[in-house]
């Protein structure tokens, strides 16, 4: 268990709902769920969730902390916002799922090797390098995230798509040398570091 997690357990004891309310994006709305299940029926990846948002909310109220935070359910969110627009109680379900995933990731309780978790991390780190996403290095990073050999295999598997984009001039091999970037790159780094510092302090993760 990470230090952050140990501290969280000590702080909130059995009150996982309160932990979620204080530390998870839009977590204060979890208590408003009325258990209708519309979210579960509206999710394009619904059949692939271990626990639907409806169940996740119930599990939070029932104090099932480990099960929720180690679940790969919220990593199945495609950010389609279908649940949000259909929820009769107007819960920002997409954001709560994002918030739970982010919190699980921060406490390092999220499943290791969870592919969406890895992609999300790669994406963020990629954009943080220059202030903008570099699609070439992001894709290459993806293919090689599980090691060199697997990376070659992945690249070969996706060769058709990549070549297509290359031919259509929608993937620029020159981007490997840096490509588009923000001029104020270092300022952005400082700005984000500051934001994270403020947020961690507020959430008790500092």
């Amino acid at each position, binding site marked *: 268990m990470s230090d952050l997690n140990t501290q969280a357990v000590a702080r909130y004891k059995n009150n996982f709902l309160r932990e979620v309310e204080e530390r998870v*994006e839009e977590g204060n709305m979890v208590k408003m769920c009325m258990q209708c299940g519309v979210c579960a029926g509206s999710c*394009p*990846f619904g059949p692939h969730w271990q626990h639907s948002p409806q169940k996740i909310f119930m599990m939070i109220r029932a104090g099932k902390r480990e099960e929720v935070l180690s679940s790969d359910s919220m*990593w*199945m969110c*495609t*950010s*389609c*916002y*279908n649940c*949000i*627009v*259909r929820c009769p109680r107007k819960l920002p379900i*997409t954001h709560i799922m*994002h918030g739970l*995933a*982010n919190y699980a*990731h*921060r406490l390092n309780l999220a499943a290791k090797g969870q*592919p*969406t978790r890895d*992609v*999300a991390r790669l*994406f*963020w*780190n990629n*954009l943080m390098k220059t*202030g*903008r*996403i570099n*699609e070439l290095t992001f894709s290459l990073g*993806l293919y090689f995230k599980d090691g060199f050999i697997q990376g070659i295999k992945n690249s070969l598997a*996706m060769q*058709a*798509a990549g070549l*297509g*984009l290359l031919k*259509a*001039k*929608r*993937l*620029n091999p020159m*981007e490997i040398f840096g*490509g*588009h970037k*923000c001029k*104020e790159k270092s*300022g*952005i780094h*400082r*700005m*984000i*570091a*500051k*934001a*994270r510092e*403020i*947020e961690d302090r*507020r*959430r008790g993760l500092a």
Partner: protein
Amino acid sequence: MAKKQYAFYPGCSSQKGASASNYITSFGVMCEKLDIQLNEIPDWNCCGASIGYGEGGELPRMVLNARNLAIAEKDLPGQDIVSGCPACWLGLREAVDRLHEHDRLKTETNEALKEVNLTYKGGSKARHMTEVLIEDIGYAGIKAPVVKPLDGLKVAGYVGCQANRPYGIAGESFENPLYLDKMIEAVGAEAVPYEQKAACCGGALAFSEPEKAQAQIRQIVEAAYDNAADLIVTPCPLCQANVEIYQAEINKKHGTKLNMPVLYYSQLITVAYGGSVKEAGLNGQVIRAAKLDKIAGG
């Protein structure tokens, strides 16, 4: 007539040589004919997209977007901020809304913005390019410059997710948005019935959960075939890329013969306005839209 001025936020995928570069190419003729002037926000940064949630928390994502909003506020005062990418638009709009509603979040955001010597005052208006076309130009206005009506072209209007939810176009339904169909018909093409119009392509999970996303994409493409569409049109770069690029992959795995062109509404409009294959970015298609290429004269 004075040009309509907008602060423009292209977003990462619409840069030169990036996956939606053909999208941005097709803005040229369209904006010229409609007297729209897009003024790029200087030194803009990535919006963080949705997938940014995993590593970036709420505040870092707010701050990323607030930087773009603050620059626009400072350098392009009074101009609505426009993006062609629904994810970029959504990132900006969520930031505008949340920073408006939550004082604490705004204070914290501005504290972080101090690192780049910016302050976000608030009150910006973040819009998607289709909103500008529909609300500021109007369907009749979109139709007016048409010189080559796209008669006989059958188009499946694929709105996708984030161009429709949670904000969408004012007055449209989340379950059956009609604006894209109306735009298609404004340029003389036929909008076919399309039950997958608001379905999800898998978004960023096309990378992490390829099987699941490709199952979605397959349905989206097959529904277009079922309704005898010649091509799919979308307002979203991620939808466009996912639905176009993975068809070959799906064919390889499942023995299907999917080969459905997927374009942007702006490419249709450009061709209808008399734009060339190059001006419409049609040469940027991985799956070429033969019928539209022909109309454009290439």
